[in-house]
């Protein structure tokens, strides 16, 4: 790897870490000043924030290839993906994991583990948390498949994926802070609440087994719908520029 590329990676990594530290610092001093946020104490608010970061970084790590999808559609290079003996969805979705994100996952995992332990969860609640995190990744997968499918139909990926990122970033704080109907929108329609707030609440003992099962039902439905949409979009691909 040439020096310029190494430096570019260093810049991005430093930027990501700095952004996390700045926001964490803001959150910390905010809670010091206000004591609680919609009834949650400082450790709980920080745990919501860490859970958001964990889901966000893991999704970026696995699905970085989605960010590179648009040029393939615009140039017609997606033809080359289609003729390869590998599932085109898998290639487009997870064909290029991001090593940069891999670097940030272990310390984040440690922080989640440490702050989570300060909340004194029971073993059952930890199990709920882990299960719901897996469900979060299912929903994130569904979103990324939808973005790819939309990319085939509209050739617009860059902003769609960033809008997804902006929507999920509303989960940096528990969705309880949002007023209705935005709260309902973020809980059911764009399930940021299910992806981030619900797992964190489960660790705090605020979610029951039916809640976990219903959440999984929604996650699986989202994946099913997104796969159907992907198949529909593939039929619309015209290979126009190739």
């Amino acid at each position, binding site marked *: 790897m040439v020096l310029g590329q190494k430096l570019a990676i260093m*810049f*991005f990594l430093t930027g990501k870490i700095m952004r996390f530290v700045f926001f964490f*610092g803001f959150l910390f001093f905010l809670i010091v000043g206000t004591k609680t946020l919609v009834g949650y104490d400082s450790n709980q608010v920080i745990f919501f924030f860490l859970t958001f970061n964990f889901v966000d970084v893991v999704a970026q790590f696995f699905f970085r290839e989605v960010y590179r999808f648009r040029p393939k559609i615009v140039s017609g290079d997606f033809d080359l993906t289609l003729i390869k003996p590998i599932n085109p969805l898998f290639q487009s979705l997870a064909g290029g994991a991001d090593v940069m994100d891999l670097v940030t996952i272990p310390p984040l995992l440690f922080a989640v583990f440490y702050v989570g332990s300060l909340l004194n969860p029971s073993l059952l609640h930890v199990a709920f948390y882990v299960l719901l995190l897996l469900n979060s990744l299912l929903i994130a997968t569904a979103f990324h498949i939808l973005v790819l499918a939309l990319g085939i139909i509209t050739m617009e990926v860059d902003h769609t994926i960033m809008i997804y990122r902006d929507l999920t970033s509303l989960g940096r704080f528990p969705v309880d802070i949002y007023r209705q109907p935005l709260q309902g929108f973020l809980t059911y329609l764009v399930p940021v609440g299910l992806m981030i707030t619900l797992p964190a609440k489960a660790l705090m003992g605020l979610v029951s087994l039916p809640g976990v099962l219903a959440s999984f039902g929604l996650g699986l439905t989202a994946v099913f719908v997104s796969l159907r949409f992907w198949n529909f979009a593939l039929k619309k691909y015209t290979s126009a520029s190739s």
Partner: protein
Amino acid sequence: MNKYLQIFKISFAQEFAYKANFIMWRVRNVFQIFLIFFLWDAVFSDQGRVVFGYDRTKILTYVFGVMLVRALVLSSKSVDIARDIATGELSNYLLRPISYFKYWFTRDVSSKVLNIMFAVVEFAILYLILKPPFYFQTDIFTNLSFLISVGVAILIFSTLIFIVSTVPFWAPELGWGSHFLVTVVVVESLSGSVFPIDVLPQLVQRVLMITPFPYLIYFPIQVYLGKIGGFQYLQGTLISLLWIVVLWLVLRRVWSKGLKVYQAFGR
């Protein structure tokens, strides 16, 4: 002057050539405002609460103020300078009878005009939907001071972004990386566009107020809210002006050194 007016018109028209892109960009801005608005709305759900020197009216005015001041100060086209240098496109501009910086500053102004037009519409829509209490500044002198501080902020940001864009003279691959680090991470976090600087401890505030970043968003809004005035305003404006001079001198030096090592890669 006429040629820059034409550049302004062309740049303005170009933005409409990519309507979907522009609308998506504005939608993203609205989402970012949602996060900050509802956070503070939740913190100040108790109407009489005063935290960090803000009451509910002033903090929600701060959030709405961010929307407008951001559109004026942080919207810019000159991030593309880095691409011009990295691809060798810069050579085309150096041969033309125009000032390269004036060219990009004109394009920045057109971007700011377009963004503020949309921001005002978004402001009105969100104001009608969210119905926040809003602090209307009625003092003419304070409003004038606010406008001056926004003008100064625009100059600081433009000079800063020009400097950051020169990185590809030495490392073509670092164009976007350096912008990400400085304009996306540092400016976004330390300018006050995510949170007001006075949430932080006194010592951190004092250190930050020596840097140019809080003068981009935080300082103008504080002036509008009437939280900064008199001697503090003069002191802040003096520091801002000093930064413009320092950044301009740095830019001139870096640009002339950069042109000497420029190899027009890709041409």
